[in-house]
């Protein structure tokens, strides 16, 4: 039977192999997480899950009220790209929901597996680690859900719960640790940042014949610019653009070697690091006594 709308086929387990590299101990230590998966990971995860259910209405509500209509299914680029049914937002949330039902709901305790309640086992954890890192938290599913169920909220909670038990990915933890080390995601140390800025100054003097400054750690400027760090590394045309614009407008500005990155990978890890990474902007602004912050990315 042909359905009146295009329906993507499903291929069970199609992206099961796409598993992120595990975090390194040195990075985990820097971002206040257990260095490796805890012995009591299951208890640690369930404890954290209980805490999060009491802190986020979104999480509890969205786990409770999904009717599994499937309207979100073909709205997820990860499902459309991989055809793996566990990448349908509803199925991704179900990975969380079945554990939630087992340990935190009356319905799950009464009907058990018939109501999809499931124990938090090694296999379930493997699915969590695989599929909760195949979500980009774009929230497109929430636009099409009749109740606005935001799978990103569930993804974020799942990652935070795993992180509390010492389970995280190398990419995310490494970047957050780098931010604390160097002030930015790319790991550009202060002298390199400074050097890059003076290189751009020289370059512009040669090409434009104008003295355009790229101030670093200047106290008392009007504006603190917090760019994506790649702007002063790979996409320097953008950095040159900032400099020219501020020069033409006659506004005093500065970048900070404590905080030269607007991107926040804490978002993909947990609340504490999310806040800590963002808080650097405030700290840098106060330290440099600027009046305004221009914040990209």
């Amino acid at each position, binding site marked *: 039977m042909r359905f009146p709308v295009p329906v993507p086929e499903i291929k069970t387990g199609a992206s099961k192999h796409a598993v992120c590299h595990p975090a390194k101990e040195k990075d985990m230590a820097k971002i206040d997480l257990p260095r490796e998966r805890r012995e009591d990971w299951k208890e640690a995860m369930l404890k954290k899950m209980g805490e999060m259910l009491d802190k986020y209405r979104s999480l509890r509500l969205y786990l409770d009220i999904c009717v599994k209509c499937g309207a979100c299914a073909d709205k997820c680029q990860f499902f459309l790209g991989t055809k793996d049914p566990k990448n349908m937002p509803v199925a991704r949330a179900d990975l969380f929901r079945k554990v939630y039902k087992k340990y935190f709901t009356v319905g799950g305790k009464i009907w058990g597996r018939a109501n999809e309640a499931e124990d938090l086992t090694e296999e379930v954890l493997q699915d969590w680690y695989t599929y909760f890192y195949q979500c980009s938290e774009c929230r497109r599913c929430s636009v*099409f*859900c009749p109740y606005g169920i935001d799978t990103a909220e569930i993804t974020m909670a799942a990652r935070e719960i795993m992180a509390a038990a010492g389970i995280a990915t190398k990419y995310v933890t490494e970047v957050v640790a780098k931010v604390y080390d160097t002030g930015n995601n790319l790991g550009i140390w202060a002298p390199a940042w400074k050097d890059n800025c003076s*290189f751009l100054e020289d370059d512009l003097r040669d090409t434009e014949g104008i003295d355009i400054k790229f101030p670093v750690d200047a106290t008392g400027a009007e504006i603190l610019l917090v760019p994506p760090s790649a702007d002063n590394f790979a996409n320097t045309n953008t950095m040159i653009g900032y400099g020219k614009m501020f020069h033409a407008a006659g506004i005093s500005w500065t970048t900070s070697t404590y905080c030269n990155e607007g991107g926040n990978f804490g978002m993909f890890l947990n609340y504490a690091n999310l806040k800590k990474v963002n808080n650097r902007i405030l700290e840098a602004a106060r330290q440099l006594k600027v009046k305004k912050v221009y914040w990209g990315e």
Partner: protein
Amino acid sequence: MAAKILYIYLPYLAAVVFAVGVIFRIYTWAKTPVPLRIVTTPAPKTRGGVALRLIGDALWFPSLFKGDKPLWVGGVLFHSLLWLVLLRHLRFFLYPVPGWVESLQTAGLYAGYLIPIPLALLLLRRLVLERNLYISILGDYFALLLLLGITLSGIFLKAFFPAYLVDVKDMLLGLLHLSPRVAVLPWLFGLHFFLVLLLLLYFPFSKLMHAGGIFFSPTRNQRANFEKRFVNPWDVKVAYNSNNLFPPEKYRQELASPGEGRKE
């Protein structure tokens, strides 16, 4: 004894479980804080706008309309017919029957005859679409089959084997006025009544709570007043990160004299 259970004990049990269950679920959502502003845009800026958005979401499902037209047709048909049927049934519970309930009788009657159609469509959709079959659990089929059972028994009751209205109303008003009497009613009515009680008992423990839940959804009930600061009620203070000196101590010297350390 069976009649006593069905028409006296079970209705009160169902009413208590339903009321306590629903209130408890809603209380749980209401007391859980909302730490962040996560409203999905485009979002209204005022409370009045939010109320309109929620009413719209609850009545004609604009998100489904955007994303899945066949599902939207099934969903809107089912829910609007259900409204009519429920309002029509008020005549069994109210005495005297208000004029507006009287005026809804014909519409409610046809709605009752039609309501199995969207239910069957929704059930078929779960079974025919591979991806919906994948996500459906027993509870999804149970809810649909229960509703089908209720509507079909209701239709048969109305069209072919009517129960004596005065007996039905006598039984229901007796329950409402806390002076229940053991009723003698046809078995088909008993089945219809039993399935409804089952639905009430099941409701608070199930996904059917979406009925109240939608109004608590932060992505839908928040305002887009981004100019106002949103305060997280359980916010934690983060410590200044001492790993990251300002500017890093080992480079302080270098930074004090610009240009130094560069390779020309």
